[in-house]
């Protein structure tokens, strides 16, 4: 029995409480912000590879004030770098990734009509929307958007005299982030409660698809870590606007000795990274879950080691709370503390390695079908290996001394987040598009999108490791102030070239996405031959998801190519045959 009610345009598309619509709202907003954030990176990459050169496109986007004569203003450079990081980490890879797939998939994959509270879910999107508006407004203020890095360390982020972006731009950033965190928390509440309570008959926790496990754990991670960012931000707001000294002490700036005493900037770093580190796993884990699903379906094989995959997700999540100090090895912290964080950080490599081996084992003796989603899932495995391994260098405190805040780190985190997690997101969009919109995305465009992206992306970020080992610091407006970096300009040009190429091909994806919504070939109910519950819903998508009773579940989600079966997949709703055991 579906939930019929009179729908207006407003209640269907704007203030919807249907999880599927809310998911799309997150997706479209995330995609839009992704384009904005990516554009910012192209703008500053132009400056980095051709320092001091005039580019018409810079003036076109930034105007005469921030790109006079087509040359990027150094303060705006720092703003672009800051906003790029903020937008991609939070708006695209957190809200865009989790907001889309948790909202879309959770009720469908567990067999529920909708989330536990459609109202709270709707609020979660509108807080996100409000955060987006505030952040976008901050791009246009007189003194410029926030520019102290996405990590906003005080005192730089607390003192407008230190950098103009720390004026109104930083205030708006803090407001936007507060709204964003509230949105995330509201979403997370629903994801947890829905998965725990609204599973259909037979859907025990051990029959949950891995995507559900990943999203459940991510939601718990978020509830426990995002509020600490709020406390860090609250104290920063007080230091900025009320003159308290939580983070500030012994400062002379602009010729003036400030009154603040007794504060510690390192306190901010601890509070920030207590969220900051779990945050990157909040970004990674949904991608891990999505990729597990897609590799399995397109290999026509169960995901290898389901229990180990669940346990390793939990291990990564647990460990993510006790590694934050590896961002602070060179702050002068107690060396013993540094040792502890090295130890815990390197430990995280173990469950990560287990996951990689399990993916490879899934591909062994598989029957691989190369949908665009599968290509991105394979790309995920490659970039997760590459990016994860360089983490071993960064997590080792002694080695971090010479690579901290260099391009080595920039390469590492872009490969694990900007590549792995984004590939997970792309894979998810290609894979679930038929369920979201009832149509297929164009396959050829998908192939072109993947290959150009895969090659360009490695072209951008792999060379950065060499820049880092050459000692090149990050967040530098230009490398031309130091003769020791003169030899690196060729590498910078290669990076910018691939950045532009990779950036442009994303437009192909955006085109494919919107074209296919309206003109894509009509999808069948289960185009991929997948076992999970969402593929048993009708193509037209209705409130309440299933027209009649919600189906019951009799088996796990990974019976692909099971011996003795007629087809190479057995949906979760199929009862066990006589004498058949569950896996």
């Amino acid at each position, binding site marked *: 029995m579906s939930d019929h009610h009179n729908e207006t345009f407003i209640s269907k598309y704007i203030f919807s409480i249907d999880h599927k619509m809310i998911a799309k709202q997150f997706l479209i907003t995330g995609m839009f912000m992704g384009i904005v954030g990516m554009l910012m990176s192209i703008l500053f990459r132009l400056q980095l590879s051709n320092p001091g050169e005039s580019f018409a496109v810079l003036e076109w986007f930034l105007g005469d004030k921030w790109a006079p004569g087509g040359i990027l203003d150094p303060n705006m450079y*720092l703003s672009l770098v800051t906003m790029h990081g903020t937008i991609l980490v939070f708006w695209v890879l957190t809200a865009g990734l989790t907001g889309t797939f948790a909202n879309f998939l959770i009720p469908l994959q567990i067999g529920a009509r909708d989330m536990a509270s459609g109202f709270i879910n709707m609020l979660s999107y509108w807080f996100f929307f409000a955060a987006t508006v505030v952040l976008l407004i901050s791009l246009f203020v007189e003194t410029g958007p926030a520019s102290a*890095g996405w990590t906003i*360390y*005080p005192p*730089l982020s607390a003192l407008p005299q230190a*950098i103009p972006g720390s004026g109104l731009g930083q205030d708006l950033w803090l407001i936007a982030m507060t709204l964003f965190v509230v949105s995330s928390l509201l979403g997370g509440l629903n994801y947890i409660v829905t998965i725990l309570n609204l599973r259909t008959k037979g859907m025990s926790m051990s029959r949950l698809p891995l995507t559900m496990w990943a999203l459940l754990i991510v939601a718990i991670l978020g509830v426990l870590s995002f509020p600490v960012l709020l406390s860090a931000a609250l104290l920063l707001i007080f230091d900025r606007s009320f003159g308290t000294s939580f983070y*500030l*002490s*012994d*400062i*002379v*700036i602009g010729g003036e*000795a400030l009154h603040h005493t*007794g504060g510690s900037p390192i306190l901010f770093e601890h509070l920030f990274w207590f969220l900051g580190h779990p945050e990157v796993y909040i970004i990674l884990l949904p991608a891990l879950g999505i990729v597990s699903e897609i590799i399995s379906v397109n290999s026509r*094989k169960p995901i*290898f*080691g389901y229990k180990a995959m669940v346990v390793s997700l939990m291990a990564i999540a647990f460990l993510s709370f006790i590694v934050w100090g590896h961002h602070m090895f*060179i702050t*002068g912290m107690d060396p013993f503390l540094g040792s502890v964080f*090295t*130890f815990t950080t*390197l*430990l995280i*490599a173990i469950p990560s390695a*287990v996951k*990689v*081996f399990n993916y490879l084992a899934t*591909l062994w*003796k598989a*029957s*691989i*079908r*190369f949908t665009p989603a599968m290509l991105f899932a394979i790309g995920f495995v490659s970039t997760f*290996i*590459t990016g994860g391994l360089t983490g*071993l*260098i960064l997590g*080792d*405190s*002694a*080695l971090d*001394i*010479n690579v901290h*805040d*260099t391009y080595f780190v920039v390469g590492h985190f872009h490969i694990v987040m900007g590549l792995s997690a984004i590939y997970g997101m792309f894979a998810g969009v290609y894979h679930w598009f038929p369920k979201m919109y009832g149509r297929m*995305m164009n396959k050829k465009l998908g*192939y072109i999108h993947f290959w150009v992206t895969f090659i360009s992306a490695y072209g951008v970020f*792999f*060379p950065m490791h060499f820049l880092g080992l*050459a*000692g090149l610091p990050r967040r*530098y407006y230009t*490398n031309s102030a130091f003769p020791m970096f003169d030899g*690196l300009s060729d590498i910078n040009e290669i990076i910018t070239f691939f950045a532009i190429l990779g950036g442009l091909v994303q437009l192909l994806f955006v085109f494919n996405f919107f*074209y296919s919504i309206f*003109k894509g*070939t009509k999808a069948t109910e289960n185009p991929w031959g997948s076992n999970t519950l969402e593929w048993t819903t009708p193509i037209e998508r209705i409130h309440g998801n299933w027209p009649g009773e919600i189906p019951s579940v009799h088996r796990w989600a990974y019976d*692909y*190519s099971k011996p003795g079966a007629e087809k190479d997949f057995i949906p979760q709703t199929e009862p066990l045959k006589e004498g058949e055991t569950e*896996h």
Partner: protein
Amino acid sequence: MNILIILVAFLVVATLVQLLRVGELLSEVKNQDVNKVTEKDNKNQSMIMTIVGILFLASCVWQYFSWVHLMLPGATSEHGVTIDNLMAFTMILIIVVFILLHIVLFYFIYKYRKAADNDVAYYYPHNNKLELIWTIAPTIVLTVVILYGLSVWDQITNADTSKSEVIEVYGKQFDWKARYPGEDKTLGSYNYKLVQGLNALGVDMDDETSLDDKVTRELHLVVDKPVLLKFRSQDIIHSAFLPHFRVQMNCVPGMSTQFAFTPTKTTSEMKDQEGEDFEYVLLCNKICGVAHYNMQMKVVVETQEKYDAWLAEQNTLSEKLLTQK
């Protein structure tokens, strides 16, 4: 001009739309689903993956050989050598794993593509023994990495500084100053409220030990002599990065941080090795504002005699601040 760009963009999109429609109509005529992934697709994509995979690994090798000469020269400090050894060890480890895993990945992709109707998958849901093996193996490897890494860290952070020359490095937007303790081998005390005019470091001139301190624009060090750098910041967080020595430490207003090391090669030795243009440098490595990219201090490592001569030329604080009124 802008209108032209918008028009071109519109035309590109329109063309793409038409191309796609033509493709779909053609497929309809041939009674095929344009978006169905066929065995031909599997063969093509897996072939491309193999080629791209090989090219990718080859490009990594090419990048290494093209750019290895651009990387920092071997460490010129005692602890730096141990760091470099640890780095080489860890790098070789991760490079080997990186290459092996990628070969396995690309090989599986090629071998197990569904190229024909009877390419069926093997139902193999788990194997606990394998899980154990590939949990224990990384654990053993990582234990070695951790123990090795921690021993190097311990060496660096627990260095014996009893015989070190203490020098203060002071960062502010956007330059660095060094302060030498003078004959009394003691740095005078300081207070940020005293920062004014020529007393850029806020040194307390009422403290007797401050009188013979010397504030300089360059950092000079004696080769093979241990030094303890103490860091302060005037305004915001900076980070003193001396990459050739493998030294980095944040400079935080309101606290004092430090790093101990021993330089092992003089600037002139490095000029012989790396070229006449070589200079040691101290750079800022924590975002600090508009000129963050140009906050540097020249570092010179020299013999004791040259160092003494240079230091003798520098004015003491009492000369600079108390006699010039």
